[in-house]
Structure formats: structure tokens, C-alpha cells
């Protein structure tokens, strides 16, 4: 290991970061703004996904069991239903329990004493993990022995799936646009820092530095500027989460905000990585413009 070389390289990176401090601050600032926008959007998207998941867990598939079925096979039926792909939860509601529930529900509105016989079947109430799985689960359950009929809110499921699909496509488009915008802003700013040093690049070429050697410090700078910018953005996001979310969560109790810090750490790491990567790529491209002979 030649420490003199390492020292020279780090010295070059550091000197350039500090010498063009104003320019580097601009780069860091624009990375921070871009990454903060992206991070906010990703956070909102994740929260929305959590909210919709929670709301959709209310959608149930009801399997009405035949009165003529083999009662001893019921525990096997419940187990088989629970083992179907996408099923989150299965509850068995007996005729008697069903009638009691109905009576409780209608009390005060209808004279339930008129219900002298029990017209209700035994029922399995099934919840899916994802709303998209509901139709498939319904079909699978219907085919099981002992199941007379299956019902679920088919129209609602279809509508929700359409909305979710559209939201996902729009969300993806917005993310792509934000990433492109961030990349543009960052690479333009880095191009300015490279431009301010085109003399240095020309001299390096003149004395026989290879293109890769010329690129290296610039890429290191891009990584440093990108990471610093992302770090600023992540700090902002974490602070916002820490300060604002508890208040929001109290106001809007039906939304399950991810208030625990660990929930955001993978997102924070992804954003830091994105900042560093974008900085490196932007530097690579910007320097390339001055390396053509």
C-alpha cells in the first residue's frame, strides 16, 4: 500500500470539495431537495398502501355450508380453507351463532321474536391477505366438499382493484419522473463543478493521466455530494416523521401511520444509496464530456 498515493487522492477529493465549496453546496442542496421529494412521495405511497391493505381486510368471503354435509369433516374443511393461498383468516360461524348475531343486529328495528325457525346455514367467514386474491379464494372454496355457495362483494372488489391498479401505475410514473428530475438537477450541478475545473482536466490529459484516473476523484466527489445531500434529505424526513406523525396519527386515527423509526430505516438507506449512485453516475457522465479528444 502506497500511502502517499492514497493521501494524494484523498487530498485531491477534499481540496476540490472545499475549493468549490459554493458549487458543492449547490449540488448537495439540489440532491437534498430531490431526494426529500422522492422520499416524501415514497413514504406517502407506503402509508397509502398500508391504509388500503387495512381497509381491504374488511372484505370477506362467506362460504355457506350445506346442511347435508358430513359434520365430522368440518375441522378438516376449516383447515383446508385456511391453507389456501392468500387466506389470512378463517372463522366458523354456526347456525345458532349466526341467528344470535342477526338478532343482536336487528334488535329494536324488527320484532325478532317472529323468527321462530333458524333459516341460516353454518358459515365460514374468510379474510384474504390481499384484495386481489379474493376472487380466486372464492372459486377455490366453492369447489370444496360441503360448501353449498360462496358470496363476496364482487363489484366492490373489482372497483377497488381497478382503483389500486391505477394508483400503482400513477405512483410508478411519478416516481420515475421524480428520479429523472433528481438526476437532471444533480447532473447539471455536477456538470458546473466539472466545468469550473476543465483547465485542470486539460492539464491532467496533457501530462498523460489516463481517463479513468481523471474520472476517479470526480466520481468520489459525486458520491460524497450525493450522499451528503441524501443524508440531509433523510434527516429532514426522519425529523418530520418524529415531530409531525404522532400529531397526525392522533388527528387521523383510522390511518395506520408507520410511526416507529425502524419502519423508515430501510427507506432511509435506499435513499442514501440512491443519492450516492446518482452522484457517481452524474459525475461520470459530466466528466466524460471533457475527456473526448
Amino acid at each position: 500500500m502506497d500511502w502517499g498515493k492514497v493521501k494524494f487522492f484523498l487530498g485531491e477529493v477534499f481540496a476540490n470539495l472545499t475549493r468549490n465549496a459554493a458549487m458543492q453546496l449547490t449540488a448537495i442542496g439540489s440532491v437534498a431537495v430531490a431526494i426529500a421529494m422522492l422520499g416524501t412521495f415514497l413514504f406517502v405511497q407506503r402509508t397509502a398502501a398500508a391504509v388500503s391493505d387495512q381497509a381491504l381486510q374488511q372484505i370477506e368471503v362467506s362460504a355457506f355450508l350445506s346442511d347435508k354435509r358430513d359434520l365430522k369433516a368440518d375441522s378438516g374443511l376449516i383447515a383446508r380453507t385456511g391453507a389456501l393461498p392468500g387466506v389470512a383468516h378463517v372463522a366458523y360461524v354456526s347456525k345458532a351463532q349466526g341467528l344470535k348475531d342477526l338478532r343482536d343486529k336487528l334488535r329494536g328495528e324488527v320484532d325478532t321474536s317472529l323468527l321462530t325457525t333458524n333459516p341460516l346455514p353454518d358459515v365460514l367467514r374468510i379474510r384474504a391477505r390481499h384484495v386481489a386474491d379474493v376472487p380466486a379464494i372464492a372459486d377455490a372454496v366453492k369447489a370444496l366438499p360441503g360448501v353449498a355457495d360462496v358470496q363476496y362483494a364482487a363489484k366492490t372488489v373489482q372497483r377497488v382493484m381497478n382503483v389500486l391498479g391505477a394508483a400503482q401505475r400513477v405512483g410508478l410514473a411519478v416516481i420515475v419522473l421524480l428520479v429523472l428530475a433528481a438526476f437532471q438537477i444533480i447532473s447539471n450541478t455536477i456538470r458546473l463543478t466539472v466545468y469550473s475545473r476543465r483547465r485542470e482536466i486539460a492539464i491532467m490529459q496533457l501530462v498523460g493521466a489516463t481517463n479513468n484516473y481523471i474520472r476517479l476523484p470526480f466520481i468520489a466527489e459525486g458520491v460524497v455530494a450525493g450522499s451528503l445531500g441524501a443524508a440531509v434529505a433523510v434527516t429532514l424526513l426522519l425529523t418530520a416523521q418524529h415531530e409531525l406523525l404522532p400529531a397526525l396519527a392522533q388527528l387521523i386515527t383510522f390511518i395506520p401511520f408507520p410511526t416507529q423509526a425502524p419502519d423508515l430505516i430501510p427507506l432511509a438507506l435506499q435513499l442514501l444509496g440512491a443519492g450516492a449512485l446518482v452522484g457517481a453516475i452524474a459525475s461520470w457522465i459530466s466528466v466524460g464530456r471533457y475527456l473526448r479528444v
Partner: protein
Amino acid sequence: MIELRNVSLLYPNGVRALDAVDLKIEKGEFVFLVGHSGTGKSSLLRLLYREQVPTTGDVYVDGIAVHRMRAGAIPRLRRNVGVVFQDFKLLGGKTIWENVAFALQVTGARTKDVMRQVPRCLDLVGLAQKSRMFPSELSGGEQQRAAIARALVNNPKILLCDEPTGNLDPSNTTEIMELLQRINTKGTTVVVATHNQAVVDRMRKRVVRLENGRIVGDEERGFYFLGLGQGQVLSG
């Protein structure tokens, strides 16, 4: 060491910078390229360190066919060819030591070599005492000597100088030319493009004269103006 065969250089704007130039420079020679501004002196030098590629013709430097060289091979050529300019091209943010060391460091040289070569070159140009100063703190002549030290730090076989004294007063000019002469006597081939008549006439070296991109004269121990004095024309 240097050979141009039927070299023409046509710039995209239609200007013919060089026109069917044939030139041969042997190892260890000291050659002046003279002629008015815009006659192709700088263009000719640029061909030799592959800043320009000839439109037609062959360029050989130290046995390498520069005219058909891959871009990836350029750095190796440039480590063998030192270049000095009228405007010095020093980095203002670095000290003299750092400017000279830079040329070695960016080629990935070992620290041991940097520590040995830099003082040697600074000694050679007489700037050992001023190595910690910045270019702006030095006179023009001193800055040019620093630039020469930088050009020599890779131990090039060839030193190309494009109007090296264009920004200097007569006494600094004399110093720089004496320095170039000293470098030449140590075995480095030196090519100097200039339109400084006094310098050329005093040094009495080989003079290659360019006019409108053509070589119109080539004399051993020549003068700035064609055949001045002895009238000996050793066309080449």
C-alpha cells in the same frame, strides 16, 4: 525521433493549417519552428502530442505511429513528450512543488519516485527554494521554469515548447532559452515554436521555417530570416 510524412491538416472550418509537410528530427536535436502567427507552428506541435490528428499523412514520434493511435494509448505518448506553453498552464491552487508532482501523481507514480523526481526537476530549473510558493507569487520567467520542470518530471524523450518566451521580458527569455539548451545537452530532443527573432539568431540552431502551412526552409545553424548572413540553405 520525430517524423512527418506528407502531413496535411485541414480544420473543420476549411483552414488548411498544414500542407504536405515532410519533416524529420533526430534524437537529441534542438529545432526552432519559425514563421508568422497562423502559419501552422502550433498545429504541427499539436500533432506530435496527439492533440490533433492529421487529415492525411503519417506522424511518427519515438517509433509510434501517432496518426493511427488508439485514444487509450494517448496517455503513454504524453508521458514521453513534455509540452510547455506560452501561458504556462500552471494550476493556481497548487504550490510549485504540487504542480510539478501533479504530473507524476496523475500517472499513478509511486510516492518514492515523486519524492525523487520532483526535487531533481526543481533543482534543474533553479526553483528548489521557491517550491512552496504559488504560481501567482512568482515572476513570469519563474512560472515558465516551473512549467518546464513539470514537463520534464516524467523524463520525456522530447520537449515541445509553443512560444515559451512569448510572455517574457528579454532577460527572462534568455534564462529560459539557456535552460532549454541545458536540457537539450542532457539528451532530450527539444522543439521550440517561436517568432522571437533575437532568440533564434542568438542560439544558431536548426531552423525550420513555415509559411502558410508549408515548410519553406530548413537550415542547420540558421537565422530567423531565410539565409541571413552566410546564406547557407541546407534544405531538408
